[in-house]
């Protein structure tokens, strides 16, 4: 399958549907250790994205990713807005203006996204944030990208992100709102890590 601007846009529509579908779940996760709005925030952002894509799909995959970035930044708010916004912005820059993505490009974009999130949010692995899902996803993506196509890269990244997200359950949060809870944050899945794994799984599904 070719990974053009159109197909990236289609994948993002699918992501939007999945986010809306999991809105309550993400809210619930955030209610346990945060302020209960993560699903709402993500749904607001991706719904806005879909109506922008309905208007106009940029001509390159990088252009589409940049539209995701600016839309999320201007509609999501909260911690997730600037973090996901930065992630997509760095991914867009990394992709540049190629007309179609391959496995290596996608892996590099994921690496850039992770670097952006870390630069912005200063979280380390084990702080119980989306970084705990994204870090192993990038590592797996990079190793599979040696020879693998987009589908393989994303599917490996999604598998790793799911494990990474699950690994946040026992952790005590040290970044974001959940950190206010101290020890009481342990025993809960981090909502941002969960949304990261949902995003990657949906991308992977569309790339097959």
């Amino acid at each position, binding site marked *: 399958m070719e990974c053009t601007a159109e197909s990236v846009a289609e994948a993002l529509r699918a992501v939007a549907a999945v986010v809306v579908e999991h809105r309550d779940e993400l*809210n619930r996760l955030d209610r346990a250790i945060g*302020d209960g*709005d993560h699903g709402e925030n993500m749904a607001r952002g991706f719904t806005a994205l879909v109506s922008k894509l309905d208007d106009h799909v940029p001509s390159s995959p990088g252009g589409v990713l940049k539209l995701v970035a600016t839309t999320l930044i201007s509609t999501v*708010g*909260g911690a*997730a*807005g600037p973090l996901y916004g930065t992630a997509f912005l760095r991914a867009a820059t990394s992709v540049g203006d190629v007309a179609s993505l391959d496995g290596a490009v996608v892996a590099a974009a994921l690496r850039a996204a992770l670097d952006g999130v870390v630069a912005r949010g200063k979280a380390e692995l084990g702080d119980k944030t989306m970084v705990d899902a994204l870090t192993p996803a990038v590592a797996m993506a990079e190793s599979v990208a040696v020879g693998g196509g987009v589908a393989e890269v994303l599917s490996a990244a999604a598998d790793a992100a799911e494990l990474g997200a699950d690994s946040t359950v026992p952790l005590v949060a040290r970044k974001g709102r959940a950190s206010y*809870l101290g020890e009481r944050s342990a025993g809960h899945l981090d909502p941002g890590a969960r949304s990261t794994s949902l995003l990657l799984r949906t991308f992977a599904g569309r790339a097959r």
Partner: protein
Amino acid sequence: MKKIINDPATVVVDALRGMALAHADLLDVQYDPAVVVRADAPVPRKVAVISGGGSGHEPLHGGFVGRGMLDAACPGAVFTSPTPDQVAAAVARTDGGAGALLIVKNYTGDVLNFETAAELGAADGVDVRTVVIDDDVAVKDSLYTAGRRGVGGTVLLEKIVGAAAERGVDLDGCEALARRVVSQVRSMGLALTACTVPHAGEPSFTLGDDEMELGIGIHGEPGRRRVPVGPADELVPALLDPILEDMPLGEGGRVLLFTNGMGGTPLIELYLAHGIAETLLAERGVAVERRLVGPYITSLEMQGMSLTVLKLDDEMVELWDAPVHTPALRWGV
């Protein structure tokens, strides 16, 4: 969930419309992006003082827009920080040529969004500075947390810096003053009940019939620890002691005491608690020279309260007393 609303998705905009109608003389409300602006903005040669944050803390921040306080407020979705373009629009709309000071409560989301906005504002040639307020002693300020939250001290900071800007103090002066206020203010809160975010439809946590959350923030997030509710004579020291431990005032200290309601606690209880707090401070030789009692920074319908103590100096007293004319605070005009 029982609320006087139509659609959870439009609560903020619907409330802004009512606010615009109620205070047409004071406020100019813009909807896309949402910004509450002082009616006579921009004020030439005045530093623009701008704040914002998630909605649901009313009157904070929109209720503090007006002469002698904020030039603009950026209301995010309920309990969600505003987006950078709201902040950028506020800067553009209120810039009187003397730069802008952004007052940001220390939450990851707020800090990140305002940071991004400051970059945008600076890019547009406006000198934008950011001051982060983190007065909540319930949170340990360490590498292992996102740092102390910004809570009740925000109201006092906005009033005092707003007064300075109104008097023509320049951006450096306003910024330095703001940092001084931040360094001298401490707060702590408790909740007797949780609150329900409209889109969530159910409370953010549940408390037993005789439990309370000590060290609560302002977003319905659980607090430091859950303890049995005691009489006011125990609750008030449970807030005041950690504050005073964190800010040794010594004999002869002069303070402003702010007894704040979380939204669902009646004034009769706030006055009762205020009386206890003032008496305790007096017993320790601390002079309460100014006070504010009421629900000024809230968490929707949450029952509970917070105490804020600001160590005063002559300049702060003068700025506190200076005229202010906003929907929620008004004197001297």
